[in-house]
């Protein structure tokens, strides 16, 4: 494979968004690529002198992907021996394969965990990217144990499910699991928090740091304050202690 085909440059408002966009476009995970930051970008004042972030993704071991795809074919075959779940929407046909694979995977995991719940799987909006995320909604009675402390359980469930679905498909797809609309509620909460902190920063003039958060939650804060004319945000520290700081522009 030529150098050009294994390297991709992406430009986006921030490094984090650029990486996320690049991985989506390539259909790969962070483990599959080397990330090189070419330009961290600059926010600028009132949109003046701002510069977008620029990164390069280099694909590690370019032949690996093909092997994976072949092997996944075998896995899919072994999987078909398992008893099929009866599912109304499955009979409709013409369903994207990532949706049916995701449904099958989550149903098996929940069944092994002895969880009874309503599961719905669909493709989400493709957020100016080509890859549409797979959205899994789990609803039912007393499911808070599936969310866990600091979303630990729901994140573990989402991580394992997305790994399995990615392998079955032979390509990575963004996948999000929600339980009892927890993520929506959390997003609303974070947006509110972000605006409150921004107000405090403006009135005191002092920089503030939020609690450490996972990447998806930091992203919500960055986006919420992106168009705020008075403050700017930056993530500092290393995961899992990485946190958003808010300061005056």
């Amino acid at each position, binding site marked *: 494979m030529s150098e050009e085909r294994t390297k991709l440059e992406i430009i986006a408002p921030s490094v984090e968004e650029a990486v996320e966009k690049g991985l989506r476009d390539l259909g790969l995970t962070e483990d599959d690529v080397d990330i090189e930051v070419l330009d961290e970008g600059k926010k600028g004042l009132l949109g003046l002198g701002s510069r977008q972030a620029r990164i390069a993704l280099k694909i590690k071991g370019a032949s690996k992907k093909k092997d994976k795809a072949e092997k996944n074919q075998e896995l899919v075959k072994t999987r078909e021996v398992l008893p099929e779940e009866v599912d109304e929407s499955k009979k409709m046909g013409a369903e994207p394969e990532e949706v049916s694979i995701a449904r099958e995977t989550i149903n098996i995991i929940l069944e092994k965990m002895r969880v009874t719940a309503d599961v719905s799987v669909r493709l989400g909006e493709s957020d100016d990217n080509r890859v549409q995320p797979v959205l899994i909604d789990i609803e039912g009675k007393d499911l808070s144990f599936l969310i866990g402390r600091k979303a630990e*359980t729901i994140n*573990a469930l989402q991580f394992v499910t997305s790994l399995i679905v990615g392998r079955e498909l032979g390509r990575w797809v963004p996948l999000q699991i929600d339980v009892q609309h927890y993520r929506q509620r959390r997003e609303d909460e974070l947006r509110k928090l972000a605006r409150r902190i921004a107000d405090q920063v403006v009135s005191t003039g002092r920089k503030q740091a939020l609690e450490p958060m996972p990447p998806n939650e930091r992203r919500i804060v960055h986006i919420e304050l992106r168009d705020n004319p008075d403050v700017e945000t930056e993530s500092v520290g290393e995961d899992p202690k990485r946190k958003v700081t808010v300061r005056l522009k």
Partner: protein
Amino acid sequence: MKGDNLQELVEFVAQSLVDQPANVNVEKQQRGNMVQLELHVAKEDMGRVIGKGGRVANSIRTLLNVAAAREGSRANLDIVEPS
């Protein structure tokens, strides 16, 4: 039998993630309400079930603990390197 679904949970996830699903084996020992599971995979597949920084293994343990708690037991998962 109690704990069988926990064993199946680990088995399903491991088999779905490795290159050699036929070499996945989960052994179970039960002591009172403690379920001890040992996951054996091919040497080449160790990285796939452990993950970067143990992320895959820890996620499997999180799901396992939640599933065990639901039936009033406790579970422990060891991933055993083939000798």
